[in-house]
């Protein structure tokens, strides 16, 4: 867990541009760049650039792609801070215990028919190269957005040009269907490597899941403090994937509803309540080891040091919530609205006292209150790391905002989520105001190693 933000001081360095006179054949060697930017041993495969190169050169390696942070500093005097930079190649993938950024762009992908195992590996390699560049604040490709051959489509779409890295993290996951489709087909020879825990979540009471918003062979979670940077990441990775994988569903999130570091102020969800007070934080590495990272004896070796990502799109019926009395709102949640303190007393970070009784011997925190039902002491000590985002996606045909919480959690086993969610789905007073409309589960491999690609041990 080495997510220490470090300002990126690298200027644009020149690699050695290939000879522009002929189309190069694909090789596996890239050109190592100077400077502190993360490098990969290979550049984008020729196929990865297929959509990118025109009549010109299919470049390789990380060449003279612009360093956006440097360009930003050069171009704009107003930009004084490059923002946080989280290196891509780490022991655990970034974007989990990383202090939660403000913006999300999440996409689930399905692998296209006809894609072979080798193609899939190549896709992951291409994605790794691109993700390493973007998280360092660099453009995708050798020439980036504006420096390539004039008759070729730009390799990078360009909307992040001039923007700092903005704390971008890109986190990859593998869905159950990647290993075996619902019909039992093993497309990529991976079925034997599927962790026993990696199966679709069960139906919970009250679920109203839409098939088109659920599932997926692969996922990418892009988080940043600048929405344009997060969007740019998914967009470019989607482009790179054309022909091999396509977006199944995606979700934008505009406000974090969690803190993953004690340095963060607790944000509010669209119910107006603070969300994420009692969360596994980056400053608790022991808790992370126990509850978050897959252990080496938990399952297949390729996933050790990884985690599981649960994504649930939770629609809030905010119109009825907004008409509800403050008393009921606080009773349902179990905390007061202003401070976020548990109704048993104290301040925001005081531990709730579920026994403390008020009038008529009724507990101050209702038996059906959300904070009680989700609490580790009421769930055999289960803890999960929540990292969700608010969303408002237009409105429905009844004039109601399509608003809610895009819930994301990371945990050592999906069983942790399932146990707590079952408790909530059965009893939570909050159920009156929410509907789960989308659901997906992904195995998140450990961090990629420099020179390798994300998920490589799965294919080894």
């Amino acid at each position, binding site marked *: 867990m080495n997510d220490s933000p470090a300002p990126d001081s690298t200027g644009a360095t020149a690699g050695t541009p290939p000879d522009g006179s002929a189309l190069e054949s694909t090789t596996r060697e890239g050109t190592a760049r100077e400077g502190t930017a993360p490098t990969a041993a290979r550049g984008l495969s020729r196929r990865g650039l297929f959509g990118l190169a025109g009549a010109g050169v299919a470049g390789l390696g990380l060449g003279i792609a612009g360093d956006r942070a440097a360009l930003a500093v050069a171009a704009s005097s107003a930009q004084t801070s490059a923002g946080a930079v989280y290196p891509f190649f780490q022991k655990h993938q970034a974007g989990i215990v990383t202090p939660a950024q403000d913006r999300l762009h999440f996409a689930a992908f399905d692998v296209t028919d006809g894609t072979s195992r080798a193609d899939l590996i190549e896709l992951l390699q291409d994605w790794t190269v691109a993700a390493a560049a973007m998280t360092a604040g660099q453009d995708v490709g050798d020439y980036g957005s504006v420096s390539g051959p004039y008759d070729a489509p730009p390799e990078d779409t360009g909307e992040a040009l001039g923007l700092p890295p903005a704390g971008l993290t890109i986190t990859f996951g593998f869905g159950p269907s990647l290993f075996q489709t619902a019909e039992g087909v093993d497309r990529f020879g991976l079925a034997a490597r599927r962790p026993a825990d990696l199966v679709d979540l069960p*139906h919970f009471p009250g679920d109203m899941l839409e098939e088109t918003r659920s599932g997926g062979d692969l996922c990418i979670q892009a988080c940043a403090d600048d929405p344009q940077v997060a969007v740019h990441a998914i967009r470019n990775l989607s482009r790179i994937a054309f022909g091999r994988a396509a977006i199944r569903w995606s979700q934008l999130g505009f406000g974090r509803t969690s803190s993953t570091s004690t340095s963060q102020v607790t944000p509010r969800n669209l119910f107006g309540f603070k969300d994420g007070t009692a969360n596994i934080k980056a400053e608790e590495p022991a808790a992370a080891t126990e509850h978050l990272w897959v252990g080496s004896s938990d399952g297949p070796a390729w996933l050790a040091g990884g985690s599981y990502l649960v994504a649930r799109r939770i629609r809030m019926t905010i119109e009825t919530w907004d*008409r509800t009395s403050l008393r009921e709102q606080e009773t349902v949640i179990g905390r007061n609205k202003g401070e976020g303190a548990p109704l048993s007393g104290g301040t925001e970070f*005081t531990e709730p006292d579920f026994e403390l009784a008020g009038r008529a011997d009724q507990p101050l925190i209702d038996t059906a209150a959300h904070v009680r039902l989700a609490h580790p002491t009421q769930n055999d000590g289960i803890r999960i790391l929540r990292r969700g985002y608010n969303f408002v996606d237009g409105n429905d*045909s009844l004039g109601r905002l399509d608003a809610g919480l895009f819930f994301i959690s990371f945990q050592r086993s999906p069983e942790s989520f399932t146990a707590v969610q079952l408790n909530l789905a059965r009893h939570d*007073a909050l159920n009156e105001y929410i509907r789960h409309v989308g659901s997906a589960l992904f195995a998140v491999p450990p961090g990629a190693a420099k020179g390798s690609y994300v998920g490589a041990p799965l294919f080894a």
Partner: protein
Amino acid sequence: MRARLLPLVAASAVGLLALTGCVANATDADSANAALTVDSSADACTVSAAEAPSGNLSFAVTNSGDQVTEFYLLAEDGLRIVGEVENIGPGLSRDLVVQLAPGNYLTTCKPGMVGDGIDKTAFTVTDSGDEVVDADLDAQVEVANTNYAAYVRDQVAQLLTGTQAFADAYLAGDDDTARALYAPTRAHWERVETVAESFGDLDPQLDLREADLEEGQDWTGWHAIEKDLWPAEAEAGFAAYTPEQRQNLADLLVTDTETLNDKVQDLDFTLSQQTNGAIGLLDEVATGKVTGEEEFWSHTDLWDFQANIDGAKVLYAGVRDILIEEDADLATELDTEFAALQELLDAQRVGEDFTLYTDLTPAEVKAFADQVNALGEPLNQLTATLVL
């Protein structure tokens, strides 16, 4: 139907007497809320002022002690409760907003919620010149309570009779009759749904939709039978129930309704339970019936919709006289919005029946949703207006 798992919000045991704190027709735009603070500690109850002008007053009570505490505003006799805040956890703050007429009062706190209250201090409300309503409405509230309890008993009795007839038809294999009885019988349930939901298990046993089921849970009640009566609407491969399943479901339906009938014989409704009941019924419409989620196979959602509104109207009618004295404008608004909603429902009548939900046009559904919102906003002011 998704159960409201919280018990209906209960007014305090002496809530009936708290009506003197109700919000009146304040027409004077200059009357500002006087804001006071109260510090409740282990041995003191310190109010920031001993005097305030009449009108809207707000007490921000902070518990600086380490026990659960309460704050009371009492009448001059030291007994009648004019306003109160209960269940304030250690370290927390909560606001009491009241409207007070000129006169002498007492403030006191009860750390640990026992005894008579400590540090009783005189509190004087001077005449600010603003008009304050001060009506003693106990008798009216008691009448409303008695009438509503009788209404609930009557509806559930009709539900029981209707359920027995429905179960007989279903078991006899007379599906046409069963289908014809389904929605009209359920109307009796839907009219008093918020009361039924307060009985915990009965609501899931009788009114659970398939989507609300947990894996491995037994599905009983109206909607389980609904699916069997409208199999054409069910998913491909749905198998009709066996005679044993029919018997089991029908028996349970009757037995559970008999249990409900027993439970409603001796009920009492405080004013806030009545107002919150009306609000709850409209919430049912807003979240389930206006979207067609409730009657997944029979599409008889409009029957339920009308029944929920019937129930809300009965509750509203019971407190309307009280409301007119407190806030005539709100009463006029509610009258208008209820009438507009009823007009939309009437337009969908087909003889004794209603248009099926699936036959409504998107524009008609939108009109319903808009009107539900138009009614919901003022209706949700009802509790705060009448019960402070």
